[in-house]
């Protein structure tokens, strides 16, 4: 990895100065609790958000002394930036920091298109800094174990995969950027697709071919998306929903065994062998909740800047999933939804 010549230039001592750009629900629930466990970094943390009210609240609650309403004000002040703004701004804001020689950790999706993502990666290389992305599910011990098992062909060739993630949307979004007609751009495929499709590409070590992409957009953003993929002889099905709960499982059927796990079941891996024997492989994990993984991400980012460690998830690794998402949008068909067919209202003279 390229050493950033400018790293630490803005820091006194060993701990880098990091700014979190965007102080929405994710920053509050994921990043700030992680920084609370890294007091060295918390002391130098800068919060940035366009809402001064929000900044004051979060800064007071989390003992952060420095905050700004415009990220341009911190471009020359920080060694690293965590980009946690609505996804349509990931590219432009990340680029501004990268051009200034600042390490960037970006929330998923890294970018809205492969071209944007590639431009970001090229800029990071040019500036001699790192660009990484938070795909939290990649850090799950169960998902890491699956990657190992598939690489080793421990259970033979994978024949079938499925991944379903659905629940009634309840993310405490303050800005409503997913749905607000003024800001929305891409629906669940751009929100949860990066997790699901990235895991599949990562597990398989390649980008599968798109067979079918269906969603329920009527000119707005899709709330339900189904994607069918193929990689060699392996058929893959992904179902995502913001409207209701799905099985919330993934399954991977190989020649000799089948893995079937809750997609958030990071601490164990249930494997049913061809013989019928069911084995539950316990995996070491101190994390009790999803947001506990924030500490891993933040600590790694600090060490990337401070010690030149490798990022947990370099941006270049997620390019296949971004390409796949773009293909899904380009080739999307609307589901056959009979309850939207033959709609009518009676013809009646309007009230005056």
């Amino acid at each position, binding site marked *: 990895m390229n050493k950033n010549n400018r790293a630490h230039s803005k820091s006194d001592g060993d701990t880098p100065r990091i700014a979190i750009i965007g102080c929405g629900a994710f920053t509050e629930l994921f990043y700030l609790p992680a920084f609370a466990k890294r007091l060295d970094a918390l002391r130098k943390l800068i919060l940035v958000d366009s809402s001064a009210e929000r900044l004051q609240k979060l800064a007071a609650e989390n003992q952060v002394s420095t905050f700004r309403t415009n990220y341009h004000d911190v471009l020359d002040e920080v060694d690293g930036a965590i980009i946690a703004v609505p996804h349509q701004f990931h590219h432009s804001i990340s680029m501004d920091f990268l051009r200034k020689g600042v390490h960037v950790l970006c929330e998923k999706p890294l970018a809205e298109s492969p071209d944007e993502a590639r431009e970001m990666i090229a800029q990071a290389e040019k500036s001699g800094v790192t660009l990484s992305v938070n795909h939290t599910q990649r850090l799950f011990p169960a998902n890491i174990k699956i990657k190992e098992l598939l690489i080793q062909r421990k259970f033979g060739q994978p024949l079938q995969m499925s991944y379903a993630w659905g629940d009634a*949307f309840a993310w405490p979004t303050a800005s409503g950027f997913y*749905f607000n007609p003024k800001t*929305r751009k891409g*629906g669940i495929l751009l929100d949860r697709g990066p997790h699901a499709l990235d895991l599949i590409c990562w597990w398989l070590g390649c980008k599968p071919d798109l067979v079918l992409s269906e969603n329920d957009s009527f*000119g707005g953003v899709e709330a339900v998306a189904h994607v069918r993929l193929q990689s060699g002889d392996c058929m893959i099905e992904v179902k995502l929903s913001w409207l*209701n709960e799905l099985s919330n499982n993934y399954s991977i059927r190989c020649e000799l065994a089948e893995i079937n796990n809750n997609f958030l079941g*990071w601490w164990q891996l249930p494997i049913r062998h061809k013989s019928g024997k069911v084995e539950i492989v316990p995996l070491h994990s101190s994390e009790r909740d999803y947001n506990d993984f924030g500490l891993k991400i933040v600590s790694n980012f600090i060490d990337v800047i401070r010690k030149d460690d490798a990022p947990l998830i370099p941006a270049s690794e997620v390019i296949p999933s971004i390409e796949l998402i773009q293909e899904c949008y380009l080739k999307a068909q609307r589901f056959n939804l009979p309850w939207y067919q033959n*709609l009518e209202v009676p013809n009646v003279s309007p009230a*005056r």
Partner: protein
Amino acid sequence: MSAQHDKQTVLVTGAAGFVGARVVEILHLTGAAEVRAGIRQWSSAGVARLARFPVDILICDVMNKTQVEKAVDGVTTIVHCVLGDGKVNVEGTHNLLEAAKKHGLRRFVHISTAEVYGEPSGEIAETTSYGYTGSEYADSKIEAERLCFEYHTHGVPVTILRPSIVYGPFDKMWIAYFARRLQSGRLGIFKGYGEGFCNLIYIDDLVQGIWLASNHDAAVGEAFNMNGPEIITWNEYFRRLNAALNLPDLPEISPSRARFKAMSRDVIGSTLKVIQSHISERMKKRLIGGIRRTTMGRVADSARSSMNLAVELRELDHVYRRKAIYTAAKAQRILGYRPKFDVNASLQLSVAWLAHHGFLA
């Protein structure tokens, strides 16, 4: 049938709810009106549903007069579908009526409920008097109706609709929840209990009624019952939904067994509530865990899920036995309301929706 030429701009309040969202969808997809979808907050599956369409979505918490004022400005019609607690049902309606009065709308359609009649029997027409039951929902809907009538005397062109049981795609109660209950074996043919009338109206028939109420001059100052074309018993509803779901035939459940099970459910439910109220959130998290559940957490989840599906005593005594028919004759006569979806057609579409969304997996 074609849409109007003289296009209205309709503010739908409670647009993320079951009824409100369907009003938005149908008015938008038929091109009948420009729609403004008023929501209380962005964080909701109902908003995700709305955002699939290129319609105007805006924050309109009916308890917030500033938001209401902004949302009402420039609309011709309000379809008030908010379903909240008693305070929201009354004060929120009041806030909207005030704004409607100020802005001089063409029509204010208030979605009320057949529950305003209390627990009557026989054929119920709009002339039947209100029946307070102590239910926060029904009693507050009565108060909201009274406000509507009062504002009508001040010149607000109000129409009240009193739908019976509204069902169809996206219905979490009478379709999704009852399907889950049937799948889990919690429902059957309740001998002695399930012979009351199940007054079902398919959601699109209600939207038809809303559109007629929004446009018909004779609708002003009136209340109309809204019901479907077919009245069946609750046992028959369970039988038909069960068949539409392709499940094995329903067993008969004797009155004593139904009552015993419902009483057991209620006792366990009340006990669990008392225990829960005495445990701090921190202790609760320690005992049951977070995403990563403890053994106790898994047992608690399973018990809660099982209890949630069981039939309550209240249902047996106050819902499934009620022999009331809410006649929509007035709406048919004055508005030309013609419900089109019988129970089987409604269930066919509803079950297709359940299957699409993975409820039947």
